[in-house]
């Protein structure tokens, strides 16, 4: 099947997720779709798979203009997408899960369903117990099941969104083998959305690179990895000169820490941070940076290893205990993890105060709030609700709530969604903290920010932490390789 995308545009408010992308996919080939976070890969694939319509542009299947109003309609035309999180029903067993999407009669035809499932599974070498509950399957097995469902549904074009995150090496081999078979023997079109350069090199025939909503390059594979890296990250401006800062005593020490979550298991993470140091964690989202931050904050208990705060072992401490010891954590979701929608600024300031009496002294709380509004330049009044503030002001409020002094400040995407001026201002605030001896550990998917603001950098890729590099000496190219999982 021949697919053509013409001048696809999709804007979310001021964000141009897809800004006029034109692409052609031919049958019988495996395409790699590459790009940083926010490059527009997912948006484009969601448009192709009928999950959302484009604002402008058209989609042609074998020369015919198509408009899909739902993923089911797209699958009917032969386009199927395998999401990072499988779209299945965990409490169901495999047959029921399959029938839910297909059988539209009153009585269910288990016999035919099971036969269909077995046939396709056998063809691609997947072995699953049809009576097993989805809950008991691993992520890789659920993925196989989704793939089978899409294939029986008649998919000629398969989109796989980061399919190798969280699955075992063996499952990955099996997946790749079936993908090759589908493309090269059966003539289907496969699109692999990925950031792992090795995988793209290993599997794909052709790579397409997106950056900031535009198609910035395409290349036949094999090619030199350098070329892919340059297309993905462009020319990152070199770091501006910043006066050196004299670092203090050790604040944070991670030794051989392992953390396990459903998606990711991380081993042997070791890190050192000194007072006043700014340490950046780069990498694509979900590569493990957040787990490390949460482990340092006491929000997540690591399986092994030790975490020391100023020489004291804090492994297994609760978040509140860490908080009392001088650790602060600012999460990325402002109104989900940090601010309380429906509470006013005064109420926030009062809540964040480490000491309090039985009765609230609203007069002095209000005075304190006014001082902080002034100091953190928040556009709002003491009685304004947190959810009435704009995003940038919510971020300022989050920083206004931090206690002082702090030993360790953990930040997720400190300036995400902010304009340059606000971002600079936030970093000025953070550098003031550094003067007080606070060590700052932050994650960001903005490579420029990591290089510009950090003293040292570590890159995460699929749960593995790279070597630690000096921000002054590194280049975007070096980091790009590390993000792509190449040492």
């Amino acid at each position, binding site marked *: 099947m021949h697919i053509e995308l013409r001048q696809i545009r999709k804007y979310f408010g001021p964000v141009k997720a897809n800004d006029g992308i034109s692409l052609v996919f031919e049958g019988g080939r495996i395409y790699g779709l590459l790009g940083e976070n926010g490059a527009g890969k997912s948006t484009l694939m969601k448009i192709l798979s009928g999950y959302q319509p484009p604002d402008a542009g058209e989609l042609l299947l074998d020369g015919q203009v198509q408009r899909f109003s739902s993923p089911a309609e797209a699958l009917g035309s032969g386009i199927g997408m395998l999401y990072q999180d499988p779209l299945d029903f965990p409490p169901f067993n495999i047959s029921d899960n399959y029938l839910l999407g297909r059988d539209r009669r009153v009585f269910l035809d288990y016999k035919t369903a099971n036969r269909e499932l077995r046939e396709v599974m056998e063809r691609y070498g997947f072995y699953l117990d049809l009576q097993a509950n989805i809950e008991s399957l691993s992520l890789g097995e659920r993925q196989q099941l989704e793939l089978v469902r899409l294939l029986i549904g008649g998919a000629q074009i398969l989109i796989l969104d980061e399919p190798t995150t969280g699955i075992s090496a063996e499952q990955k081999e099996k997946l790749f083998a079936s993908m090759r078979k589908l493309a090269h023997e059966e003539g289907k079109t496969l699109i692999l959305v990925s950031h792992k350069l090795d995988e793209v090199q290993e599997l794909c025939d052709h790579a397409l690179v997106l950056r900031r909503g535009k198609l910035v390059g395409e290349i036949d594979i094999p090619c030199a990895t350098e070329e892919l890296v340059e297309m993905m990250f462009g020319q990152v401006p070199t770091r501006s000169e910043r006066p050196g800062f004299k670092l203090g005593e050790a604040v944070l020490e991670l030794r051989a820490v392992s953390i396990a979550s459903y998606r990711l298991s991380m081993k042997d993470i070791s890190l050192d941070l000194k007072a006043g140091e700014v340490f950046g964690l780069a990498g694509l989202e979900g590569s493990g940076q957040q787990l490390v931050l949460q482990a340092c904050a006491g929000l997540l208990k690591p399986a092994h290893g030790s975490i020391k705060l100023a020489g004291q072992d804090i492994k297994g401490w609760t*978040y*509140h205990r860490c*908080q009392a010891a001088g650790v602060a*954590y600012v*999460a990325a979701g402002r*109104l*989900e*993890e*940090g*601010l*309380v*929608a*429906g*509470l006013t600024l005064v*109420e*926030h300031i*009062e*809540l*964040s105060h*480490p000491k*309090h*009496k*039985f*009765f*609230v002294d*609203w007069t002095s709380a209000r005075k304190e709030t006014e001082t902080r509004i002034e100091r953190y330049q928040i*556009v*709002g009044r003491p009685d*304004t609700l947190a959810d*009435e*503030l*704009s995003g940038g*002001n919510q971020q300022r409020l989050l920083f206004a*709530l931090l206690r002082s002094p702090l030993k360790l400040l953990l930040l997720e995407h400190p300036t995400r969604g902010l304009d340059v001026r606000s971002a600079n201002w936030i970093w000025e605030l953070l550098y003031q903290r550094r003067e007080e001896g606070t060590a700052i550990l932050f994650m960001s998917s903005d490579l420029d920010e990591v290089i510009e603001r950090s003293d040292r950098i570590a890159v995460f890729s699929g749960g593995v932490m790279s070597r630690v590099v000096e921000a002054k000496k590194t280049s975007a190219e070096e980091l790009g390789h590390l993000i792509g999982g190449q040492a």
Partner: protein
Amino acid sequence: MKTRRWITRIWPIVPILAALIVTSALLVLFGAKPGESFQAMFQGAFGDQSKTLSVLAFWVPLLFSAVGLLVTFTAGLWNIGVEGQIVMGAIAASWVALRLEAPAPLLITLEILAAMASGALWAGVTAVLKTRGKVHEIFTGLALNNLAIILTNYLISGPWQPPEGGTFRGTQPFQDAALLPLFANSRFSPLSLLLALVAFSMVLVALRGTFWGLKLKALGKNLRSAYLLGVSSEREMILAMMFCGALAGLGGAVRVLSWFDSLRQSISGGIGFLALLVVMLATYQIYWVPLIAFFFSAVLNGSISLQLRTQLHSSLGGILTGLMVLFILLFGDASKLGIGRKKEADEQ
């Protein structure tokens, strides 16, 4: 901004008015005169002194539960178990009334304390199961409601049955010293109203003026953010539930010690569930709670004598309250309709 906040504040009137209008339409449809019917209902509630006192006597225990529920709703908890907490309060007060002998002031104090402790403990079970066992409070609450009712039935027909034999209706009447002093031969006890007003003020102060109230508010609106801001959820949730349980238990004591004079089979009569409706209809605003509770009490008492005066069935009161519930669910939350909410940015 000012006007929007005012709209949110007076919004509870809207579902009530809508329910009255639809009920009127229904009455017209069936050939009755709405004005006459509502007047009959009003007469039934406030027609003479004893009727008015009856409305007051029903209002007080409802008020106890409703102000207690304000606390749990603020903390984001669905204390469906409030009904069982009322029953447990009634049982504890009855135990004191049946088993102890003391001068009236002391006995009444003991009854009230026992009722509060019992209601608080019953609520505490739900709370601990929630924080430790991760069991949702609605399920525990419903189970404990049934247990409390079963316990009542057992006590009435077993250990506490009257000497002439169990009738499944109630225990024998309590000693006079155990009963709350009543006003003019009615079921209304001024002391209970005084206690209810104290409870109302306490909740008002707790929610508006104390750090505890602020923490509950934060927990109820966003557990995760509250946790990250340093609020520990477990202790506050248990305390909120027990606070509500104590007030509900006190309401139960008022039921056995003034509305009745003994422990009866359906001692609560659904007051706990009614209190949930009151608080939702009040859109969780404390000043509306006494007014709406009073309105409910008047409607329910008024419709009892409706049938005697008109040919209408007394279920008219039920229809009216039922419609109110429907309208709260439909548009009780002004902000969900896009009224009373605005981004700061739009203003500037």
